[in-house]
């Protein structure tokens, strides 16, 4: 995708040089991430607090419905209580991949403050650079968060009533997570680049966050929505940020539909990569137009 991250001089080993450049960007971004260790540790750990409230909330919801006449646990949109908690836990992983804190606002800030100039002067590609730094952020986050994540999943292991999914399903799950990360990245980078026109994107970002919160399936499985709305929400790309990976993991997507669904996700990814590139190119032209 981001083939032209850094167009490199080194004529002897172009591929090796490019990989080295990527590695350097990654390493430096990682180091930068670890500078503010207090904020980093707190931010990582605090992510786990909402789990408890969420589990209690769903418990109360299911409890109020009571048991069905046949004595089975009630279902909401095809999810029993245990499924719902498992769903919530898996969407947390999905969100950890696809959420991009600070990305759009930072891009807009760099445009406003003129720091974007650097990417016009140096032989480096802004989008590739941002992607690598974002991967570094995620790596730093996961290196630390893997321990609390593992602990929480261990405590909640009983909610995963079906155990581990079969290998192909698991592979599909990881593929959707990675595509979800990339969709999230290119979508938010594009929002940031709207800053070439509006300079301030925080309201736009707020609207996006609001819709994303509900329509990505972060709060509840999309199958809970009324049919009249659900078909439309299922058409949107937002579901690939949280709902879809979780549904794949929990086996809620029928196996015969899975390849098609993943192809559609890949299609959305291609769409956002192209949109992001075009917006950047148009933005740079505009920037050049008004000075800055």
């Amino acid at each position: 995708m981001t083939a032209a991250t850094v167009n490199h001089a080194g004529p002897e080993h172009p591929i090796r040089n490019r990989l080295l450049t990527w590695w350097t960007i990654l390493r430096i971004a990682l180091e930068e991430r670890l500078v503010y260790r207090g904020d980093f540790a707190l931010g990582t750990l605090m992510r786990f607090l909402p789990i408890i409230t969420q589990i209690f909330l769903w418990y109360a919801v299911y409890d109020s419905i009571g048991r069905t006449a046949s004595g089975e646990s009630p279902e909401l949109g095809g999810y029993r209580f245990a499924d719902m908690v498992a769903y919530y836990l898996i969407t947390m992983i999905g969100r950890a991949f696809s959420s991009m804190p600070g990305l759009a606002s930072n891009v807009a800030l760099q445009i406003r403050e003129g720091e974007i100039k650097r990417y016009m002067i140096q032989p480096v590609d802004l989008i590739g650079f941002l992607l690598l730094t974002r991967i570094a952020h995620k790596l730093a986050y996961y290196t630390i968060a893997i321990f609390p994540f593992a602990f929480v999943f261990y405590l909640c292991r009983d909610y995963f009533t079906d155990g581990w999914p079969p290998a192909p399903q698991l592979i599909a799950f990881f593929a959707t997570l990675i595509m979800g990360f990339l969709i999230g990245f290119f979508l938010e980078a594009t929002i940031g680049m709207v800053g070439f026109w509006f300079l301030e994107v925080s309201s736009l970002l707020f609207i996006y966050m609001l819709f994303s919160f509900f329509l990505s399936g972060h709060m509840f499985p999309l199958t809970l929505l009324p049919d009249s709305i659900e078909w439309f929400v299922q058409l949107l790309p937002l579901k690939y940020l949280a709902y879809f990976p979780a549904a794949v993991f929990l086996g809620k997507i029928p196996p015969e539909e899975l390849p098609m669904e993943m192809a559609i996700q890949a299609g959305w990814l291609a769409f956002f990569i192209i949109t992001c590139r075009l917006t950047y190119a148009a933005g740079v032209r505009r920037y050049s137009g008004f000075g800055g």
Partner: protein
Amino acid sequence: MPIIEVENLVKSYRVYKKREGLGDSIRGLFRREFRDVQAVRGIDLTVEQGEFVAFLGPNGAGKTTTLKLLSGVINPTSGRATVMGYVPWERRNEYRRRFALVMGQKNQLWWDLPAQESYRLHQQIYGISHDEFKRSLDELTDLLGVRTLLGQPVRELSLGERMKMELIAALLHSPDVLFLDEPTIGLDVIAQHKIQTFLRYYQEKRQITILLTSHYMKDIAALCRRVVIIAGGQIKYDGSLAGIVDRFSGSKIVTLQFAAGNQPADLMRIGEVLDTNWPKVRLKIARADVPLRLAQALSEYTIEDVSVEDPPLENVIADMFNQVEEESAAAPEAASGGAATRKANAEHAAKDLSR
């Protein structure tokens, strides 16, 4: 063959025209008025390889815009320019590897990390070999005396130290052309001097081409043999620093020292009295009239000492800026705001120059 060739370069852009007050702010939500500002109005310039050229001019004269055009940050409205044979605004990587732009404190460095980390990244981005990188970095850090600061986070450095670090970042890949926008702005005298000495040494040794903008006369006097004066988006002068006085100053400063007790009251006949500090009097006399007026003074009064000098360069340039600003005030499509702003700009520029 010239390394930089600029031909009739024009850059104008639209700015939002907002009047004062809440009412107009609300009206601005629905309908906005724009006006065209011509930042650069037809510049022609040729620079040979190895030249060190200064752009001098008041705020808003078009100096920085010209540098931005030449480094490809912005596209021109019309006109042509090539640097080392490349059209800057095509932003080709081959070009971008061969020049550098340092624009004040808008840093190329990572704020939270030591500068050496950013330098490593530059090494990769520009494809600098390990040996070359080490040699350049050693040379630059020694010249600027910042070796001990390499491991310190950039945010903890002083303004002057940061500027030195920025310069290193810009020079690591040994660019052939360097654009410097106000490299000593806000720095104390010692740091200014250090950066001047460094730039002079580095330029002489490497014979790179440098275009520098500055408000500070001292920068320019110390570094550049060639000065390009830009005002109102146009080149008003292109030549040596000393040549400015010959070209723009029509008068000389004559100091007369009178014999004790001799205080004539009718000196206006000789020239414009600048100040009196008996027995010394300073007069401004039109260049062509100097011999005649001087002979007249010597014959009419008892004078013990005489000196004839050119007026200070700063004053000549400030006068010239004022003149240009007044001319462009008369033209409706002029670059900056109202007449008052222009006057303030010119005065500010004059103040800067004398620093």
